[in-house]
């Protein structure tokens, strides 16, 4: 894949102009090269303007207000719910619950659905690729309820060993919870196929979409996801808001998670009746402005087209992968060429990931170092930490070249 072929897919220079932070210098003369979008994406002007406009002109609490501002705020909030539903192909806005982040979405499922439906020795099937967000909530439930966790094994290439799936599904898991894309190896499991087999085995399917939804078109009905979790901040939107999707009948059957205002229909001193979905799961004042900001992010992504974003990232991944593999002493955690996003975790002989990150920062290059909230996966590969560079719609092949050059420089410093 050549650099010039890439420019045919997205007009990156034009869209970069929407991201003021990309014009920043981290030190005088050193422009920022942001390769950490897997941790959190940057935000276009349009999102920040939507936030500011809401706060400065329409700010009010929602749902129970009759005055002009309250009606405007409620309409803006609920319209975004409808837009989210459309963005992921949900059957109804009522299937969309606003939470803090993908992590809370999964905790909501583990608390509300899990505690009502899982009992001792019930199996939840995860994969070895999972982020702590899709592991620790189930471990907490395992400690509390005695459920059992099983794992689809990861291959040496950082993909999933699909051949192990039938035997694991034969244990009749109640839930199969799988990441739509690994934030370490970049692998994008065939979720539709996993869901098909899982449903056949009688399991429900949770897709951790924290990395999938920002980077590829998603249709929950086509995927066969019964539940989906994702975060606004990884897809150009504000922090503080995420989405929990559940099929309507599942959502309606779930008991509430947090109690408080808005999630009730009636309250007396002796008890309460829960509200209709989705409000039943939104206790207290939600992240109103941030939801509105997420709406602006969806508009931005939709205008560019998720298909195009996906194609661009596939292309940039194909550009970066061989160049990284050429760096002597560099080892990738995740070498798949197919079904992968543009995220690359690696370690280098004789240079600790912290030192790689530090030296790259000297060149203005922002990457992450650590276990990326996937400590068990790192342990499996025998490394406590890796350096991770990740690319999004605003990154260029030129930035990839600078990354590679800086890695050679790091090798010199530590030689």
């Amino acid at each position, binding site marked *: 894949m050549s650099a010039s072929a890439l420019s045919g897919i997205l007009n990156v220079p034009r869209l970069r102009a929407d991201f003021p932070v990309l014009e920043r210098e981290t030190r005088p003369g050193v422009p920022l090269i942001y390769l950490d979008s897997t941790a959190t994406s940057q935000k276009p002007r349009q999102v920040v303007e939507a936030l500011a406009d809401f706060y400065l002109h329409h700010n009010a609490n929602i*749902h*129970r*207000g*009759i005055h*002009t501002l*309250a*009606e*405007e705020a*409620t*309409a803006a909030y*609920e319209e975004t719910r409808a837009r989210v539903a459309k963005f992921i192909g949900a059957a*109804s806005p*009522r299937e969309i619950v606003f939470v803090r982040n993908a992590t809370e979405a999964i905790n909501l499922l583990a608390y509300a659905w899990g505690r009502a439906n899982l009992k001792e020795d019930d199996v939840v099937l995860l994969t070895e690729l999972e982020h702590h967000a899709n592991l620790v909530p189930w471990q907490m439930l395992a400690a509390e309820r005695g459920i059992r966790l099983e794992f689809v094994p990861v291959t040496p290439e950082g993909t999933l060993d699909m051949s192990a799936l039938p035997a694991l599904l034969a244990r009749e898991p109640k839930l199969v919870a799988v990441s739509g894309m690994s934030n370490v190896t970049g692998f994008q499991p065939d979720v539709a196929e996993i869901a098909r087999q899982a449903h056949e085995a009688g399991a429900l399917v949770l897709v951790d979409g924290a990395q999938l939804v920002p980077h590829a078109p998603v249709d929950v009905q086509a995927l066969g996801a019964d539940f989906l979790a994702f975060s606004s901040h990884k897809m150009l939107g504000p922090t503080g808001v995420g989405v929990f999707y559940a099929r309507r009948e599942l959502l309606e059957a779930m008991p509430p998670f947090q109690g408080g205002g808005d999630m009730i*229909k*009636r309250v007396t001193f002796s008890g309460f009746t829960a509200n*209709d979905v989705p409000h039943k799961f939104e206790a207290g004042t939600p992240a109103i402005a941030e939801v509105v900001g997420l709406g602006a992010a969806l508009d931005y992504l939709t205008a560019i087209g998720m298909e195009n974003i996906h194609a661009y990232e596939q292309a940039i991944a194909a550009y970066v992968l061989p160049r990284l593999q050429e760096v002597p002493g560099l080892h990738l955690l995740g070498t798949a060429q197919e079904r992968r996003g543009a995220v690359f975790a690696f370690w280098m002989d004789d240079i600790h990931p912290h030192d790689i990150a530090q030296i790259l920062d000297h060149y203005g290059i922002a990457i992450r170092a650590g276990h990326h909230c996937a400590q068990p996966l790192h342990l499996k590969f025998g490394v406590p930490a890796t350096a991770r560079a990740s690319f999004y719609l605003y990154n260029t092949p030129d930035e990839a070249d600078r990354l590679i050059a800086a890695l050679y420089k790091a090798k010199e410093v530590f030689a």
Partner: protein
Amino acid sequence: MDDLYREYILDHYKSPHFRGHLEDYAFVYEDDNPTCGDHLHMELQVDENGMVTDARFDGIGCALSQASADILLEHIVGKPLEEVKQFSKDDLLNLLGISLGPVRLKCALLSLKVLKGAVYGLKPGESLTEEDV
């Protein structure tokens, strides 16, 4: 004054034509809006040809919820039951002739929820959502 409170709505609120009860009725239903305490009860008379021959409502609530019940009943009396079943949210809003924000919509739609609950024979305690009407 706000168009919401123009004479039309206030007239129906202050001097409703269909507030009260019938001696005899084919359909009855009631529901409420717990967040503001609005409550609405409706009775419908239907003849052998499936025509709505008379109707009454009773209840407490804001001007909008009560006036919209009165306006709605005024509209459906004399119509075939099948037509009443098809009567939509948009039809009601057209009838009221006003634009409403999300909260006031709940007030206006209570009458339609109760009407639909009646003609579809819902049991006490069963409830329709705004999406259903």
